[in-house]
């Protein structure tokens, strides 16, 4: 056996303590997550049935389901993606390819600030500029509120992804007589496309869990949506309404709806992982 000096033993002891400490912290964090997931699954699985997934809410004691909320959430995601993704991607392209000067810096600062705005503020804002003038809640207003949350996330991830495209590729295209806009749209954006798609998916996953901005915009509904101009149900608002109700049956349904929402977000995240893996 080798004889270790004092300094050597001390170093080894520090290393062992720190390794254990980081390991424990990891266990704690991952453990908490696992407890949450398994608790939701355990609570929710009981009320889950095919009928529950396709039916609309019924009065207490008559069963009912969250079919309209699932449809509503998907409609809201479609509206918000329709506005939010193109706008966010365009802002990202501007930040990376065009706005290199002072104005670009200002826009970047504004986008960063927007990222930090609490989502309920976005909801109140959309309530003031859309819901009040229209005099009623609507799916459109809910979609716009979610889009406003998406734009800064998509803009920044798009910018980062475009900046990863080597400068030499832009020069190569310019040297072939390509005008700036064709370089950007024909070479740089396609090269960064998988990364941009990942950013878009993350933004969708993020807003699919939002409740606060929908409370004063999409409001919620007990029926399947018939137009974008009327209130619409969503999983998150439905969970909120059932969870604060006094009925045990609705509590159980809230758990089941939570399980469905979680599966939805998990599914989106798995798609993100798949896209990211393809790139490397």
């Amino acid at each position, binding site marked *: 056996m080798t004889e270790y000096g004092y300094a050597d033993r001390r170093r080894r002891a520090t290393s062992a303590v720190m390794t254990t400490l980081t390991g424990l912290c990891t266990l704690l964090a991952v453990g908490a997550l696992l407890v949450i997931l398994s608790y939701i699954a355990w609570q929710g699985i009981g009320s889950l049935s095919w009928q529950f997934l396709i039916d609309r809410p019924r009065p207490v004691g008559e069963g009912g389901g969250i079919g309209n909320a699932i449809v509503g959430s998907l409609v809201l995601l479609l509206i918000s993606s329709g506005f939010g993704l193109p706008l966010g991607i365009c802002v990202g392209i501007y930040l990376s390819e065009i706005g290199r000067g002072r104005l670009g810096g200002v826009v970047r600062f504004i986008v960063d600030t927007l990222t930090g705005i609490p989502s309920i503020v976005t909801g109140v804002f959309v309530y003031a500029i859309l819901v009040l003038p229209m005099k009623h809640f609507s799916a459109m207003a809910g979609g716009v509120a979610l889009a406003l949350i998406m734009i800064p996330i998509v803009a920044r991830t798009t910018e980062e992804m475009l900046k990863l495209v080597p400068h030499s590729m832009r020069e*190569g295209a*310019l*040297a*072939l*007589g*390509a005008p700036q806009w*064709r370089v950007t749209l024909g*070479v740089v954006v396609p*090269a960064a496309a998988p990364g941009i798609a990942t950013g878009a998916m993350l933004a969708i996953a993020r807003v699919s869990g939002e409740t606060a901005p929908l409370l004063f915009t999409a409001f919620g509904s007990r029926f399947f949506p018939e137009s974008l101009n009327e209130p619409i149900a969503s999983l998150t608002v439905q969970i909120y309404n059932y969870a604060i109700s006094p009925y045990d049956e609705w509590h159980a349904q809230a758990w089941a709806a939570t399980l469905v929402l979680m599966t939805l977000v998990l599914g989106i995240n798995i798609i993100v992982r798949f896209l990211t893996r393809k790139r490397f």
Partner: protein
Amino acid sequence: MPVEIAAPKIEVRASTAPPPQTDAKAKVAVSDLNFFYGRTQALHNISIAIPERIVMAFIGPSGCGKSTFLRTLNRMNDVIPGTRVGGQVMIDDHDIYAPGTDVVELRRRVGMVFQKSNPFPKSIFDNVAYGLRINRLTSSSSELAGRVEQALKDAALWNEVKDRLKTSALSLSGGQQQRLCIARALAIRPEVLLMDEPASALDPIATSKIEELIFDLKKQYTIVIVTHNMQQAARVSDTTAFFLLGKLIEVNSTEKMFTAPNEKLTEDYITGRFG
């Protein structure tokens, strides 16, 4: 890129010797060109005439401005913020820095191959077709395919890729990628071809292929090549220009340059006394 040189203290002055007399008409004529990165002056009073259908090599130590000068010839430096150009660059009697010059048209006529190969993440075919498509140089898909094939043949790459034109350009080896970039530049049939150390990252076999290629290409193109490798300059070029600290020291026929240069500085550099 600020210019920093760790060379011995040498008094440098711009060459007063006139460019060598040639019978060919000057394709590119540069007079009193000054270039700045911000406040740093990278090029001082460069005047040079590049005759048609020859290979001219630019040599000099790192940071001497030869790449910067090359990039002024197709206004590639325009994309770097904070740069400034003074003087005149005439290509076919047209000042390319005159207001109203169509930079896109200029770059179509003055092609460029970069030090690091930079294929687009597209198929081999689409890489070569890129310049043809954006400039609408072909009117049918069969004509496009023909031009792509010709460019790949000119770049001595056709036999290696003809069976996999639809595969990604990134699947090619480094030397093949660089020849692909040459093919891409040749496809739009530029009049002048600028090459910025095109073989510096390649192994000797790939390098010799590119050198043979340059030798063949000068029948049709005016070629300007920047190189760190003096043997390469001696092998491929007809005329050589020596740059030092942002100044053009000497332009001479390559043979004379490497045997009996006019300037003491050139001789010192070529014989390896500094740089």
